[in-house]
């Protein structure tokens, strides 16, 4: 039973892969870039799901997959054309299939009406005649228990007991007279008369007589020929069907007659004859199938060599892509826990290595000594191991991008808009966890793009744009991070309206002076929602502030840019991994802190002339003509009571998410370093102003600053921050 549970899990994993394959194939066909193999692959995906689903008795899934497959088969054979509306129907069918898979796995219900409607549409598309009734499969029991099949087509229905029946007590014996004369084809298919006779003997008491009369003279003997025939009298508890099943595979390759007879054929002469024949079988049996070495190339295979030759090259050279077919890459499936354990251990190794390096330096060992050089090598090696281990967790963003095409279809359907999703960079690899946690925010952004970003078709036409809107989703690696953009070609942000709403919701003062970028950024403000009604689509009470927070929780940033009449672009910048971070190690009030390198613009030594007071406590520093707020990290984080002297400090110029700059005052800079990220939340909780922790070379914990929170925190009252910290 455990085996079956494990295989079921495999099945659902495989379903996910097949569904992705299915969707990407259909999208390829939709772009009119597909060929015969694309259709084949799409067919196979559905077929595979059906096959597995049958094994687990998932009737509803089987039924739908069967209908789907039938239509796809029509497409494969050219009976169904790949018209746009058919492909769109198939995409919706793929979504439904995905729903059915999910329900089979996680429970719950699907919209039965929708399933049957799409099923009907599929059947209709598949041809005028209704789709053949789907076979309903019984789930398989792994024990050999008796089971009847309900295939509409099953040639015979017998129980397993019938097949082994000969050995058990004779509760009603049947007698059969069987004549059996194999044709050469039987041997050519690697079937063998002996095995069939052996099966008959297993069924009960069999008296077998071999007829050699047709064997020709040796000179005339065709080694591929068939000259023997057999007569069997069988007494068995099994029925006619069981006897016929023995010959099921060969019925067209032999002359066969099976007649039911009364018992009583126990006459001694027959029995003796049978014994003789049995001995004879062993001699006469070397049928063609067993002497292949002698055999010339058989006639029937003369057509095959070209085909074999065509597939031979990939056998020889692994890398050669034969006719666009892809070599299955050698992969293993590993429990994620094991990978994470390895990553943890490598993290420890990195820390240990830097601790060792620090000790060696403290011991005053010369930089060019063998020990120091050896340590350098160790460091390189450690980094390489770390990178390689991280790469294990890296996965392409493709599956999530594919999921978004469904989101686009659904929202387009609901809002009555026509939308094309263009994706690029699906092969970009990111840490598995990052990918998993991107699904929700991306879904929300895509919904927003279609629902709010794009105009209604009429409005688009009026604005001189094509009726069909375009949402473009791209992923790319940029300086050690992955950048994902979601852009629509809609009307852009209605800034006047955003401003009005922000004022009405008391997010800003009515007379606030805001730049365009600042207005756009209001979209991310908690409690802001531009939808005047909570629509079915973007609603759900989730705003872009939640999106921003979930992106930030991943160590990422999200920004918006919008051009009136031309569209809106959201840009996500994400770390490639959640395990390490490039940081600048600084000291503040005796504490060692890490500032994420991605936030740092530059470091500088403030001059007295550049520092100005603003209001009661605030200070700014003039950098190239702009006044940048000075933030004293030490007092901000409560490490010291008095404000630091800027002239005795180093200013780290950082840029926050919404592109505003601040200068963080620190006491000194130790250096740049890649640090292993350790969660504070596992054993403690979120700390305001702190993104995570790390362990430094001396074994002590250092906190990693959350720049956006620190900068945002300076604008708010302390009580507010306290509450956030708790």
């Amino acid at each position, binding site marked *: 039973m455990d085996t079956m549970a494990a295989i079921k899990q495999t099945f659902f994993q495989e379903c996910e892969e097949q569904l992705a394959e299915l969707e990407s194939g259909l999208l390829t066909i939709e772009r009119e870039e597909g060929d015969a193999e694309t259709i084949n692959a799409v067919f196979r995906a559905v077929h595979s799901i059906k096959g597995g689903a049958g094994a687990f008795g998932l009737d509803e899934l089987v039924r739908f997959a069967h209908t789907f497959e039938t239509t796809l088969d029509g497409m494969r054979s050219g009976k169904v054309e790949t018209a746009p509306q058919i492909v769109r129907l198939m995409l919706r069918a793929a979504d439904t299939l995905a729903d059915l898979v999910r329900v089979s796995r996680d429970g719950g219900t699907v919209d039965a009406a929708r399933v049957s409607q799409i099923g009907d549409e599929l059947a209709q598309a598949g041809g005028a005649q209704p789709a053949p009734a789907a076979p309903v499969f019984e789930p398989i029991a792994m024990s050999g228990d008796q089971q009847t099949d309900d295939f509409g087509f099953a040639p015979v229905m017998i129980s397993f007991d019938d097949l082994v029946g000969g050995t058990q007590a004779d509760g009603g014996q049947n007698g059969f007279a069987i004549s059996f004369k194999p044709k050469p084809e039987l041997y050519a298919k690697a079937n063998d008369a002996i095995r069939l006779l052996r099966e008959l003997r297993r069924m009960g008491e069999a008296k077998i007589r071999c007829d050699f009369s047709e064997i020709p003279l040796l000179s005339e003997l065709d080694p591929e020929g068939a000259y023997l025939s057999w007569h069997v009298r069988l007494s068995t508890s099994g029925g006619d069907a069981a006897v016929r099943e023995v010959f099921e595979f060969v019925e067209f390759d032999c002359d066969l007659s099976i007649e039911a007879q009364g018992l009583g054929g126990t006459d001694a002469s027959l029995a003796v004859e049978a014994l003789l024949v049995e001995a004879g079988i062993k001699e006469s049996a070397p049928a063609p199938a067993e002497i292949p070495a002698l055999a010339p190339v058989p006639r029937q295979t003369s057509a095959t060599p070209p085909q074999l030759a065509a597939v031979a090259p990939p056998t020889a050279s692994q890398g050669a892509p034969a006719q666009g077919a892809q070599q299955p890459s050698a992969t293993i499936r590993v429990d994620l826990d094991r990978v994470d354990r390895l990553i943890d251990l490598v993290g420890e190794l990195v820390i240990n290595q830097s601790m060792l390096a620090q000790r060696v330096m403290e011991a005053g060992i010369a930089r060019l000594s063998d020990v120091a050089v050896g340590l350098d090598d160790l460091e390189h090696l450690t980094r390489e191991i770390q990178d390689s281990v991280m790469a294990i967790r890296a996965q392409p963003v493709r599956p999530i991008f594919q999921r978004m095409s469904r989101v686009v279809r659904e929202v387009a359907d609901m809002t009555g808009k026509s939308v094309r999703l263009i994706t690029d960079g699906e092969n970009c690899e990111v840490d598995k966890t990052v990918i998993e946690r991107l699904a929700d925010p991306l879904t929300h952004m895509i919904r927003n793009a279609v629902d709010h970003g794009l105009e209604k078709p009429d409005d688009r036409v009026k604005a001189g744009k094509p009726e069909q809107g375009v949402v473009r989703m791209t992923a790319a690696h940029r300086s050690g991070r992955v950048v994902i953009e979601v852009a629509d070609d809609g009307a852009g942000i209605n800034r006047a309206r955003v401003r009005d709403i922000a004022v009405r919701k008391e997010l800003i003062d009515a007379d606030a002076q805001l730049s365009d970028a600042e207005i756009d950024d209001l979209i991310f403000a908690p409690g802001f929602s531009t939808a005047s009604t909570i629509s079915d689509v973007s609603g759900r009470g989730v705003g872009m502030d939640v999106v921003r927070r979930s992106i930030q929780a991943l160590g990422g940033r999200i920004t918006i840019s919008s051009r009136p009449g031309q569209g809106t672009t959201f840009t996500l910048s994400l770390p490639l991994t959640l395990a390490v971070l490039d940081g600048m190690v600084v000291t503040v009030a005796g*504490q060692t802190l890490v500032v994420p390198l991605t936030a740092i613009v530059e470091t500088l030594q403030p001059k007295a002339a550049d520092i100005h007071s603003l209001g009661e406590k605030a200070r700014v520093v003039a950098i190239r003509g702009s006044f940048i707020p000075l933030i004293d990290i030490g007092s901000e984080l*409560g490490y010291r009571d008095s404000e630091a002297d800027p002239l005795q400090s180093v200013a780290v110029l950082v840029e926050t998410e919404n592109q505003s700059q601040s200068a963080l005052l620190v006491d000194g800079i130790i250096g740049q370093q890649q640090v292993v990220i350790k*969660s504070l939340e596992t*054993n*403690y909780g979120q700390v305001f*102003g702190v993104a995570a*922790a790390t*362990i430094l070379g001396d*074994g002590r*914990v250092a906190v990693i600053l959350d720049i956006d929170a620190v900068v945002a925190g300076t604008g708010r009252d302390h009580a507010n921050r306290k509450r956030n910290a708790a």
Partner: protein
Amino acid sequence: MHVNEQDLATNSELIAFRLGEQEFCVDIMSVRDIRGWTPTTPLPHSSDYVKGVINLRGAVLPVVDLSARLGFSSTEPTARHVIIITQVGAQTIGLLVDAVSDILTISKASIQATPNVASELARSFTKGLIAIEGRMISLIALDNILASADETSAAIH
């Protein structure tokens, strides 16, 4: 024989430790490790009873000044102080105490209810009292040890 089995089932082993003049204990099953004091890394905006975080074999865990947490004076840790590493639910937390004094085996029946004389805060962290060899030892409830002050006072009311 029957009686012994019952005893086994209801006995607990406890680790006793000192905070100032008073003795406390925790269930040995929740103790992962006992180590000497190591300097902690303070966390910004944390409650005063959170001494900061330490590195324990690659994990970052908080150290709670138990004395301050119970409403007594805060501890100025020295090399002689001890951190008891405990498992509280899914979290691992270090407790800063003066010294470990004993390992006790007691029957659960000998745990008495906490009388009303104790302060509300101290009482909220005490599961009960144990009298042994003329000493009084309070059994600490670890569940809310990291909860915020707000939540704690809410729990009391």
